[in-house]
């Protein structure tokens, strides 16, 4: 099981390197905020821990994690959209 996870991690890292090398410098700020939003996927882990309902302290910690991660997700995606809107709105040379 664990080895499968490591395989996934290594392969995904390579995919990441390939895809992200192609992002032009002008979009580096949206790349950071966007990838940041994606890293809010920790929300899934937070929900699983908060919702497992087995241990009081764990549930509370999980809940705080849910709050942090959802701030990360919603804030990240919205602000990225706000920026990209400014980039996409302009045609070349207009």
């Amino acid at each position, binding site marked *: 099981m664990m080895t499968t996870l490591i395989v996934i991690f290594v392969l995904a890292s390579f995919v990441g390197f390939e895809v992200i090398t192609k992002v032009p410098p*002008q979009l580096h700020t949206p790349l*950071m905020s966007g990838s940041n939003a994606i890293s809010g996927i920790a929300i899934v882990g937070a929900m699983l821990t908060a919702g497992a309902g087995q241990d009081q302290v764990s549930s509370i910690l999980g809940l705080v994690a849910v709050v942090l991660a959802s701030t990360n997700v919603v804030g990240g995606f919205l602000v990225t959209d706000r920026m990209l809107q400014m980039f996409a709105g302009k045609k070349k040379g207009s």
Partner: protein
Amino acid sequence: MEWITLVYLLSGVAFIIGLKRLSSPRTARSGNAIASLGMLIAIVATLLNQQIVEFWQIGVGVLVGGGLGAFFARTVQMTSMPQLVAVLNGFGGGASQLVAAAEFLRLTHRGDPIDLMTGTSIMLASIIGAVTLSGSFIAYAKLQGLKIIADRAVVFPGRHLVSALLLLATLGLGAMLVNDPSHGSLFLVMHLVAMVLGVLLVIAIGGADMPVVVALLNSYSGLAGAMAGFIIDNNALIITGALVGASGLILTKIMCKAMNRSIGNVIFGGFGAEGGGAGGGGPEGTIREVDAEGGAMLMAYANQVVIVPGYGLAVAQAQHVVRELADLLEKRGVEVKYAIHPVAGRMPGHMNVLLAEANVPYDKLWEMERINSEFDRTDVALVIGANDVVNPAARHDTSSPIYGMPILDVDNAANIIVMKRSMNPGFAGIQNELFFHEKTRMLFGDAKARLNDLVEELKQIE
């Protein structure tokens, strides 16, 4: 085969497609939408999964966090984007850290044995997450200019030793806990030590190196997420963590290259703290000032003007006035270009976002490699709040701390106008010989106010 694993895979694919579409400004916005859809799918699927029992609590948590995030995203100014990204990074790292802590407590309370791999993942997610959390908030405080922390590098004797000891301590505690998880209080100590380590790592880094730090913390938040994924056997977290980790690393590498420094040098250098006093000598000479009228004259009759924006432009919120100035010049038939240094501003791509906000078309923004050959045939280079990225000492002065850093060769232009608040040296703490160059005219004052003056003067010239 569990259906939810396939759903998480779908989310991972959506994230990859989303990042892939960031390769062009035209497709980027839809890419972001696809990625957020991937996130929504993952969240809904997780909630529908029968492992979740406390729905409404989680719902409230999501609403609170989401509301906070939406508020930040709507109200933040484009000039403050580095701060927001730093804070969100911190939140991401903190979330992974808490997931690790919660899992540790759950497993130890039940008295379950923790196997080697799970234990290692818990400790690594805790440590990386804690460093990300505290480091990001120090970065935020520095970027925001909060007075609690000096903007430039804070260094003290023996700090390398202290950092190294803290790192060893936190790793050692982690190893002990993997071996024997019964010491709950040591777990807390490990978190605290890691957080102090995060503070120390970032506090020693000066303002101009912030792009590297923000990129590096971005990478850490991804790694912490991936580690959390290992703890709870979750593919979505692992794939995403790897993607974000890679993204942050690439940006870190690009930023380091643009400063001709190694990553170790940035983290352990304490650059910008010692530099100022050490030299003592530094370039000296006569400063030649120009007023707005003279500056406007120079530009009005130029064939080509290249604008070099720096962090000072962001601080003064002057991006819209710059656009106005450029429009007036173009109306007169002057060719206007913007020269963008990779580390201008406080995060990768900072200047591009600001100028995009001011509706500057992106084909007018020239990257360093392309614009440098243009300065030869440029009549006026207008440097706005940039300093180290235009310091010619980087090319020839082997004793300069920035020697070897690729710079914008503005000194090849026929005239140089430098807009600057005062003669204070930049964040690298070194005086800039460009300011004493015979072709240079200094235009002192707040960038926005002086640009407004230039605009007014230009309107007068018929």
